[in-house]
């Protein structure tokens, strides 16, 4: 399962770098693409703006799927207050841009599964794939507009996961 989560994040991160190289953030002393895994970063009271935050929320198994397949629920949170240059009046457009980037990051809906336990990462020979995103309603919080998109990522359960 952990390889699927890692591969999903790395795939989205690399796609974001291609889609919008300007969407970067400073995190833990390094400039990185503007996407992070919430559970792999220091706990914060407020989600950062203008970046994508992946939140893993659940694990389940569908009996109609092969027995070694599990479903991982991922929420992609993002919010924006627009640009300073436009005094935030472009926040609606900025949110729409982020919506579009989420759609594009998630296409195609699969990536080779990799293991990041060793350096360099090694291919496991499998494929990580996911559903099309379902987008929530716009969340208005003071000067910020935000949204959450839900995706189900499918993972083949490894021997040690049981």
């Amino acid at each position, binding site marked *: 399962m952990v390889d699927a*989560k*890692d591969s999903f*994040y*790395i795939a989205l*991160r690399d796609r974001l770098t291609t889609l919008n190289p300007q969407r970067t953030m*400073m*995190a*833990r*002393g*390094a*400039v*990185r693409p503007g996407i*992070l*895994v919430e*559970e*792999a970063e*220091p*706990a*914060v*009271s407020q989600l950062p703006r203008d970046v994508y935050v992946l939140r893993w929320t659940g694990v389940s198994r569908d009996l109609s799927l092969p027995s070694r397949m599990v479903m991982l629920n991922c929420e992609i949170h993002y919010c924006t207050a627009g640009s300073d240059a436009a005094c935030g009046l472009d926040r609606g457009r900025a949110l729409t841009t982020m919506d579009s980037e989420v759609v594009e990051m998630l296409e195609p809906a699969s990536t080779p599964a990799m293991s*990041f*336990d060793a*350096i360099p*990462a090694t291919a496991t020979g499998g494929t990580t794939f996911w559903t099309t995103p379902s987008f929530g309603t716009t969340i208005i919080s003071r000067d910020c507009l935000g949204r959450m998109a839900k995706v189900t990522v499918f993972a083949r359960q490894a021997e040690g996961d049981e």
Partner: protein
Amino acid sequence: MLRRASQPCGADGDQVGLGRGSYQDSPLSPAVFRRVRANMQESAECGWELLLSASSVQAQVSAAQLDSADTLFAEVVGLIVGTKTFLIEAISSSEAFGQVYLYRLLLREAQPKAQ
């Protein structure tokens, strides 16, 4: 009072929680650390407050070659007091004549590990 920040880490493993990054502790001084006014809500966590001299914060910003105090605080993994770790809940600053002279951090104690 120690500020614990991770060393620059941009590797894939660091970003997915493999924890290969190393950490650096820097002393924050002078500082006032105190419990904030008692919270009367049942089962609510008690908060803590940290008051920091802006000049000491600015010294760390310069030493770390960062652009602002916000960036410095954003890189904090935890604040260490004695053997306990605290997380930053909110940050505010006080100014006089256009100059920041004090940073006020609201802290929450990290969940203790099982013994």
